[in-house]
């Protein structure tokens, strides 16, 4: 196939940036770049992005990448886009944007959750969707839009996701894949693998407003004539793509029970594939891009680090503190950060805590703790939160023997070491990538018929660097982990009171 040429354009619409890569048909990167953007935080619990921003940044990315990569743009034969999810991104009949998209980390749909619980019942919801009810899921976000902005809702033709908006712009097709549909609980029936007509009608939704669900690797259409403005020819096959979490897992070879994928992007999803025998409602349960099942828990990971980087940006600029310095200094601090503990729930607790009032905290600060201690404590705090997810995954019957770390945060050797020691599992890392865009490449390759199955991805990845857990350090971390859980338990009421203050002050 190589002789015939052929490249795959793969993009991941992330929380803080769009990552775009060109792959050849053997999964080798021939060029890549990322372009950042900023989300807007219009109020406590609200997180949005304007789809136009996504589209513009995507356009710039593609143009720049095609320009810089030494390939003939005419040789691009397939496109796959993955992205953050679940969102509420409504477009009208002409494909025009109606309002900014509510993102996965937006937690405003509290009332709607109560409504859904009341009108359907938690048990039915769990039976149908495999999930609990929380503002995180797509369903409550959609209902918030319907109930709070009825005039805008009237204009809505389809409710899209961030990646499917791009696919729509490229092909004119409004679609969603199974991994993302599963996150639009309670609208998705996880056993029957389709939108639930029953739930649509109870909540007053016409099922036509929901995009068609297609397998992630299915070709949904071709690039239209207008794509030439991006430097893309007309007629390139575009596949459905998938949720970033599922593409990340696929991209690092995680699609069989026993393996787990640890995303260390803005979100820190801990993802493990299974056979769908049980769906523990503390976790998020959906379908994998290969048609099997996955579950995950999540915590703000890189998002906590970037919060801290923003906090320190001016300081760092004044003092020449860069990532290397942070890593180096933090590595010299002993496990436990000399008594400093960080709670990473900056955007509330999602799976498995499902406690919206949760917020972040730094506890145990003394005069001798400075920025480097806080940095290390953040890495450790995220690891403690992930350890809790692991505990629940094991309780839920998950089989987990090793973890593969992906995304920006995985480049931190220190963080991988901390993860291995806190989780007591080997942590793998592929320097070659193995992120969501690699998953996209696999989906596009499969869609074009270049590969038969996803096992090919394991060949693409090459050798992993592995960090084995150190039993002694693990023992030390266990006692800090217990402290972390203890604090977490004790502060629940305080966070609820805090959110009361915020709510009242916001009025």
């Amino acid at each position, binding site marked *: 196939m190589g002789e015939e040429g052929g490249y795959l354009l793969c993009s991941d619409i992330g929380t803080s940036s769009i990552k775009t890569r060109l792959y050849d048909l053997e999964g080798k990167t021939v060029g890549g770049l990322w372009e950042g953007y900023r989300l807007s935080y219009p109020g*406590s619990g609200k997180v949005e992005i304007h789809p136009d921003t996504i589209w513009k940044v995507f356009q710039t990315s593609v143009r720049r990448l095609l320009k810089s990569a030494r390939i003939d743009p005419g040789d691009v034969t397939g496109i796959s886009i993955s992205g953050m999810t679940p969102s509420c991104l409504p477009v009208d009949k002409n494909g025009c944007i109606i309002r900014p998209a509510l993102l996965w980390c937006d937690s405003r749909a509290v009332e709607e959750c109560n409504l859904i619980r009341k009108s359907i019942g938690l048990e039915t919801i769990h039976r149908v969707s495999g999930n609990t009810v929380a503002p995180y899921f797509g369903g409550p976000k959609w209902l918030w839009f319907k109930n709070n902005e009825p005039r805008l809702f009237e204009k809505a033709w389809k409710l899209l996701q961030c990646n499917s908006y791009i696919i729509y712009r490229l092909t004119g097709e409004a679609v969603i894949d199974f991994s993302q549909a599963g996150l639009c609980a309670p609208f998705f029936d996880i056993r029957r693998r389709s939108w639930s007509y029953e739930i649509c009608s109870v909540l007053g939704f016409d099922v036509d407003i929901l995009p068609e669900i297609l397998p992630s690797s299915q070709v949904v259409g071709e690039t239209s004539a207008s794509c030439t403005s991006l430097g893309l020819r007309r007629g390139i096959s575009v596949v459905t793509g998938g949720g970033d979490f599922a593409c990340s897992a696929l991209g690092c070879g995680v699609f069989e029970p026993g393996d787990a994928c640890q995303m260390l992007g803005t979100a820190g999803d801990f993802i493990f594939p299974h056979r769908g025998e049980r769906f523990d409602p503390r976790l998020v349960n959906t379908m994998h891009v290969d048609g099997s099942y996955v579950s995950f828990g999540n915590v703000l990971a890189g*998002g906590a680090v970037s919060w801290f980087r923003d906090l320190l940006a001016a300081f760092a600029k004044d003092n020449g503190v860069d990532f290397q310095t942070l890593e180096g200094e933090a590595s010299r601090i002993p496990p436990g950060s000399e*008594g400093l503990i960080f709670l990473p729930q900056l955007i509330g607790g999602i799976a498995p805590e499902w406690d919206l009032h949760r917020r972040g905290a730094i506890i145990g600060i003394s005069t001798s703790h400075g920025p480097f201690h806080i940095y290390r404590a953040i890495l450790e705090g995220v690891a403690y939160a992930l350890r809790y997810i692991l505990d629940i995954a094991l309780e839920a019957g998950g089989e987990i023997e090793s973890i593969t770390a992906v995304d920006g945060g995985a480049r931190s050797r220190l963080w991988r070491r901390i993860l291995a020691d806190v989780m007591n599992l080997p942590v793998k890392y592929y320097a070659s990538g193995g992120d969501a865009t690699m998953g996209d490449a696999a989906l596009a390759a499969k869609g074009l018929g270049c590969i038969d199955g996803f096992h090919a991805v394991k060949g693409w990845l090459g050798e992993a660097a592995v960090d084995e857990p150190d039993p002694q350090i693990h023992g030390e971390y266990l006692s800090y982990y217990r402290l972390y859980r203890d604090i977490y338990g004790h502060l629940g009421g305080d966070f609820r009171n805090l959110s009361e203050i915020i709510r009242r002050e916001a009025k």
Partner: protein
Amino acid sequence: MKGLVINLGFRSVRAIIFGSDGRILASSSRKVETFLSSEYVEQDPDEWWRKGSECLREVLGKVEDIDFITVTASAACVTPVDEKANPTMRTILVSDKRADKEASYISRLDSFKKLGYETSAYYTIPRILWIKRNRPDIYGRTFKFLSPNDFFIAKLTGDFVIDELNATKYYTVNNEYPRELLRDLEIDEDKLPEIKPIGSMLKLSDESAENFHLRRDLPVVVTTYDAICAFFGSGVREEGDACDISGTVTSVRVLTRRDIRPDESRIFQLRYRDWNIVGGSNNLGGGLIEWLLNNFYMNRTYEDLEKLSNLSSAASGLIFLPYLMGERAPLWDDKVRGCFLGIERFHNRDDMARAVLESTGYVLRSLIEAIEDNGIQVNRIYASGGLARIDLINQIKADITGKKIYKLMEAESTALGAYCLAREVLEPGFDASPLFKIEKEYSPRREVENMYAEAYRLFKAAYRDLRRFHEERYEALLPRGDLRGVHL
């Protein structure tokens, strides 16, 4: 009436001459060195005297015909000297931890229990016992165990005396040393200075008069330690007047004729003439701001903090517990440490800094609450010291406490207080009030009252809820010998 005040602080020794209207006519200061090791915090009295003498000569060269000298310095710093007032060892400072064992030994003695003092290595007697047990040679050579006030007075007059309030650090009851306890500990009472009332007048020694070219009968007036002088130097004069003095630590005290409850252990009461001085000191002071600036605002100054948003951090759900070194009054918790609570993604550095500033208001409110629990009403608060330089902090304190805050014009309120206490003795009927000028007044803002009341409840609840964690954390760090935070 011109008075010269020697003021020894943690970081420097100063000599200041005040004129009749309370204005500073001359002042001079020298930095002093602190010697730190894991448990020891020491300074060298020879250095104090050498540098203090330089300051004296400098100000006396500028202003002639002074009417008196007085001294104010930190309390509870043990300064052992020989017959000629030469130090037999370095001074053991307030924050020194070496006498922990002696303090807990003393706490078990019946002769201690009836005195009504709490157990702490901070007091003088456990430290003298430490010297006796560990350095019997020094104990033997020592003629008197003085406080820094007494040391300067001994140098100036040749008399070995201590004022009644400084003497309370020696567990005095009704201005008498605890004879029975001293007997149990085999500490020789003769090695302690003679207790004198505040306002006692001594005379300059011939040697000092010659040394500093001063008249031989120049009065040296006994006042007292710095926190009390700062209290009187802050302008308090009526029932319910309180001061909030932030230096290395923050002292909050109120003037009242009422007594605290006998079982009140969070705060102290000192008797001065027919008044009570009620309150306590916490561990929070300029160090908190320095920590903030050093770690997050390199190369910025106090004044830069004024530019922080006027929007409360509590309103956006961020609360800071400022116990970076544990806390003294009103919590008396060595194990607690600081905490940011309620961090959201959109909180930036200025929000965090603002939360740190707001914490000074919660801490002030908690001290006032402890005072008012005893039926003593705090009416107005005079703020002085480092933190009072920041307008934003003063406004925050007014908002959170719901009390009016008055920022004083005078920067040297400790020395001014000593000046006033001494002048009252030499000039009967002297009214100090015109000497205190208010620079600015801060009123509580009604619109944030409820929000801060809730935030304050949360501030207290968070402390309570994290208490067990801090105890466990302390236990976890204990084997490492890593108990951070020597109290400076």
